[in-house]
């Protein structure tokens, strides 16, 4: 099918974009970034905004800045660019680990990291990454901007704190602390599809290689990414003797999966437990290796 008609705006820079958005945002204006989620919705007529503000000419936002504190990704940085960024991978490897699971390489050439966050699909990988790491999104409007923490940014399925008229200009992913590792494990019906269940994990070890911090973020099992702190459940022991079964139980208790055509709620709960152990162990092993190097 084809999209219904809309007024098209193609601002040349950020100032102009914020002006246009201030005007058409309250009137049902939407931002068009990579279009890899929005255009399918338009083609299927599940969305019919009166205005589209195309930000693809805002090349000033096509940035990936990796510093000691973390990685700041601009609104026009495509998935593929961030995935291939060596400096970003060195500062926060979970970004690349997650991006390899997002759709197919060709979709990643257009889709943007920030667009995926604003889209806030509860099955998407990047919102889980932002939530797990405690990152944030910077929202700009004409005359000001605000930095919204991940915990406040995701407000419901396909709903974020970005208000009409606001442009998400960048997202910040905090750096991996020392002696830490990360992993992302998921199961999808077909390679490249949204996952039936998926778990991102981050583990930090103490100086004696015991688990000091361990958190997971689960996708497809709640209205927003479900973050669970499992450090206590793991029992403060090294990877080889940690109580992974208790960690999995803690995760299964916290999630609220629903049944759909792809999987029952029980199966999703079981799968999430299995994936949590896989991701946590992978992250712990990476953390131990990190210490060795």
């Amino acid at each position, binding site marked *: *099918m*084809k*999209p*219904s*008609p*809309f*007024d*098209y705006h*193609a601002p040349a820079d950020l100032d102009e974009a914020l002006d246009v958005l201030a005007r058409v945002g309250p009137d049902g204006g939407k931002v*068009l970034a990579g*279009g*890899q989620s929005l*255009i*399918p919705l*338009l*083609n*299927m007529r599940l969305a019919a905004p009166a205005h*589209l503000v*195309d930000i*693809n000419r805002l090349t000033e936002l096509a940035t990936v800045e990796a510093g000691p504190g973390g990685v700041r990704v601009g609104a026009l940085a495509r998935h*593929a660019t961030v995935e291939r960024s060596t400096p970003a991978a060195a500062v926060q490897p979970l970004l690349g680990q997650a991006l390899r699971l997002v*759709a*197919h*390489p*060709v*979709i990643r*050439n*257009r889709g943007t990291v920030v667009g995926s966050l604003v889209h806030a699909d509860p099955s998407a990988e990047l919102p889980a990454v932002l939530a797990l790491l405690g990152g944030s999104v910077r929202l700009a409007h004409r005359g000001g901007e605000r930095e919204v923490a991940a915990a406040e940014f995701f407000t419901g399925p396909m709903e974020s704190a970005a208000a009409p008229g606001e442009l998400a200009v960048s997202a910040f992913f905090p750096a991996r602390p020392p002696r830490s590792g990360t992993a992302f494990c998921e199961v999808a019906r077909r*390679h*490249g599809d949204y996952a039936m269940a998926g778990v991102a994990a981050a583990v930090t070890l103490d100086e004696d290689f015991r688990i000091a911090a361990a958190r997971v973020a689960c996708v497809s099992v709640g209205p927003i990414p479900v973050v669970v702190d499992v450090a206590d459940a793991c029992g403060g022991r090294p990877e080889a003797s940690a109580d992974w079964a208790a960690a999995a139980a803690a995760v299964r208790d916290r999630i609220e999966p629903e049944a759909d055509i792809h999987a029952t709620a029980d199966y999703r709960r079981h799968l999430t437990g299995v994936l949590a152990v896989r991701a946590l162990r992978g992250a712990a092993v990476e953390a131990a290796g990190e210490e060795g190097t």
Partner: protein
Amino acid sequence: MNHPITLTVNGVVREATVPARRLLSDCLRHDLGLTGTHVGCEHGVCGACTVLLDGEPVRSCLMFAATADGHEITTVEGLAAADGTLSPAQRAFAECHGLQCGFCTPGFLCTVTAFLRENAAPTDEEVVEAISGNLCRCTGYQNIIKAVHRAAELQAETRADKEEGAR
């Protein structure tokens, strides 16, 4: 409202005036008459509409023609040489029976052409990953995978020949 746009398609500057909602796939097919680009699903899943945007493979059904204004597009019509000599990927698909009905082929060819430019000697696993976003309902994929490896060989031979010729 209609928008005047200028695209460089297969090396030729083309102009069109399109409504904002015109998908790039429809612009290529309807406005520019290049029907080699096929349209299957219009939601990014089948890959039949894949074209090269400034050399990178993208879904032309998930992009507005107005967004592509000022950019370079290569479609399946632009893969062969000016004299009609087929590209390595095209020759390999023909040789290895990498197509039956041909509906998916333009998308595969564009995807594979860009892939082999980045990875001239891929493993089986890398080939499968590269074409994982393209659906084919006829071949069962095995001959497509063979064709990608064969295309890599042909590309290497063509390059060697060119270097030989340059000497």
